[in-house]
């Protein structure tokens, strides 16, 4: 299926103007009027859910909560006062139809991750690890020590960590996460200083700038991000500069979340500039608009529209991605997702013009 640019505009306009119902994982925070740290061990989101996050998922997201043998204490990822574990599994069936190149489909595991949280000193020092077990061999994604002095007002992370930049979306293939190069596949070694105030959340990270390849001469990365929160909306900005002998990169992002009735919205605009030592800099624009409509408890309909200008010096290379995803959580710790993503891209590059159907099973604990 191919959507015309005009139809794409209509969808984007409808998303922006009609305030219908749509969502992404950060949408849960927008919907609840909470910060990422409310539900995740990692103050900037992603990975292991904390006790509140597990409770919220069980009581607010799932259609119903199952109690086995009338156990009044269902699984909440907390082993005891100093140890917590968690995990995510995502896998399923997908079918891809590439223009003029045929279709293919397969069953695959997209992600199997295990989280470990050791609260060495309650409320002050936490050791945290995020290990990806599949696909492929085990890969360490995050491993850091987290200090949270002043009852969490300040946060200090040191180790391998996801960098603060834009919305921490679950889908690494969104244009904003893919093109910024800051996503769950690209943790970096460094330190992150954070500030958590009632209406503010801010981070400054200083890292190797190699996206997980260790330190390298001449490479450094600084990533700054701040978000202002109100109950029904939030707005944030990020700035990232990566110094590299092969050419620096500067990135800026504006992002926001708001809710209109039962719909939680997300939006992000990224501006990326790649410098080349010999000149010929390249500018990249990427954007995302997403709406999440929880039309019934346990059910969420997500509509998304993304636009990408991968190189401002090249014509007719813009790309779009449309997403329609239905998420169904019949009970706690489980979610089924079915969706369609339509890519409109460059005629000469068939793979940028494709339709993807998928059915995904997501289990977490």
């Amino acid at each position, binding site marked *: 299926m191919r959507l015309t640019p005009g139809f794409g505009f209509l969808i984007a306009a409808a998303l922006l103007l009609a305030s219908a119902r749509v969502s992404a994982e950060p949408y849960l925070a927008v919907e609840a009027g909470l910060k990422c740290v409310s539900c995740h061990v990692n103050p900037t989101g992603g990975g292991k859910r904390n006790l509140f996050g597990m409770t919220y998922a069980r009581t607010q997201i799932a259609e119903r909560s199952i109690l086995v043998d009338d156990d009044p204490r269902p699984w909440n990822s907390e082993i005891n006062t100093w140890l917590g574990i968690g995990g995510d599994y995502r896998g399923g069936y997908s079918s891809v139809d590439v223009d003029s190149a045929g279709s293919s489909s397969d069953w695959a595991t997209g992600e199997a991750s295990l989280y470990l949280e050791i609260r060495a000193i309650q409320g002050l020092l936490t050791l945290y690890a995020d290990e990806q077990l599949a696909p492929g061999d085990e890969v360490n994604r995050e491993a850091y020590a987290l200090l949270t002095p002043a009852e969490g007002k300040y946060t200090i992370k040191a180790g391998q960590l996801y960098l603060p930049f834009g919305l921490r979306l679950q889908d690494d*293939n969104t244009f904003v996460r893919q093109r910024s190069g800051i996503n769950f596949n690209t943790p970096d070694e460094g330190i992150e200083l954070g500030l958590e105030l009632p209406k503010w959340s801010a981070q400054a990270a200083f890292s190797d700038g190699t996206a997980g390849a260790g330190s390298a001469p001449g490479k450094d990365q600084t990533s700054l991000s701040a978000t202002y929160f109100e109950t029904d909306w939030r707005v944030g900005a990020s700035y990232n500069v990566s110094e590299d002998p092969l050419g620096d990169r500067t990135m800026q992002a504006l992002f926001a979340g708001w809710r209109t009735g039962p719909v939680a919205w997300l939006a992000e605009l990224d501006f990326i500039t790649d410098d080349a030592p010999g000149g010929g800099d390249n500018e990249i624009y990427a954007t995302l608009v997403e709406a999440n409509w929880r039309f019934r408890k346990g059910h969420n309909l997500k509509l998304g529209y993304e636009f990408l200008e991968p190189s401002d010096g090249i*014509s007719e290379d813009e790309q779009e991605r449309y997403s329609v995803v239905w998420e169904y959580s019949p009970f706690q710790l489980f979610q089924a997702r079915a969706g369609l993503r339509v890519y409109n891209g460059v005629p000469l590059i068939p793979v940028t013009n494709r339709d993807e159907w998928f059915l995904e099973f997501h289990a977490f604990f």
Partner: protein
Amino acid sequence: MRQKERLTTPARVLALLGALALTGCGSGDGPLIPGAGPLMPSFDSIQANIFTPLCTNCHVGATAPLGLRLDEANSFALLVGRASVQQPAFQRVDPGDPDASYLIRKLEGTAGTGGRMPLGAPPLPQADIDMVRQWIATGALPGGAAPMTPIRVTSLDPLPGSVVPMLPMQVTAIFDRDLNAATVDLTTFLVERSGGDGTFGDGNEVAINPVSVTVPMVNPRTAIFDMSTTTPVEDTYRVTLVGTGAAVIQDLGGNALDGELAGAFPSGDGTAGGNFMADFEVAGVQPTLQSIQDNVFTPICSACHTGPTNYTLGALPAGMDLTSLGTSFAELVGVASLQNPALERVDPGDPDASWLIRKIENTQTVGQRMPPVGAALDQATIDAIRQWIADGAMM
């Protein structure tokens, strides 16, 4: 290519919102992948057709995953001869060795670490990966030149000049780079036998009709001539790989076979063209009744199992006539043993239950081993008889 006018930072927001409203409209002035042309096994072609349009979705700029930039300015230097970050024992591109190159493992999904590339997108067609393989196999050179040297044969199974006891199920030729599979077929990969005189070119040769001639996707340097259904005959066989003529074997870059074999591999005289020809001999009892008759029944068994001339009340040994192909088949296949009537002399498909096998292997319960005098049949001969029975004991 003209660069677009730069926007001030505040104007970028408006520009991007404008882009949302003008989706599909070109915003730049230069062409995309200018002059990319068809994918060829050269670095420039791979850059233009794969790295730039696909890999730089992520692998670009200072935040490129694992520091690997695959844009035109950096990809060669960061790939060729550079150790992989995920698996440092491998080079990202190991010139001359595509199987050991981490790039190939990531593209084919066999790396074992992380996801298959391109991440989040359909895998590359194997034909495209084969082009990358060939670029690496021929040295992973920079620039736009695909290798101009002719493709050569590096080994053959069965070995040239070898004598094999049984007709092999297939003939396998291995080349020094990936083949263009479309050029390897019944007209360019030939096997024939001499017709029994050990010589070729005298008109009595017998062409072997294969089940198939293939270039396996998993090993595109290999061509396989499948003759698993060919009736085995003791003879001299000739393998020909065509490098001269209208239809010749080629690599992915269109380089023709340099086929002449002068004693040792690789083939070739340094100039494209020339057929590769190599002979091997099948000598020994084959799993056919004709071969068994010629090599066993007639020269050995028929001395006693003479048939009607010395026929005495149907009794053994003369009563079991093994003097000719027809009588042997009639007296053996599906015929109950006189010594052990519970078994057939030859039970098609079941050598273990065939009385003939028990007699020649000396596991019989009645009578003596065959042949009763002289040496026992060698195991290769017995195996051929077993195979003939297992195959159905056909005439």
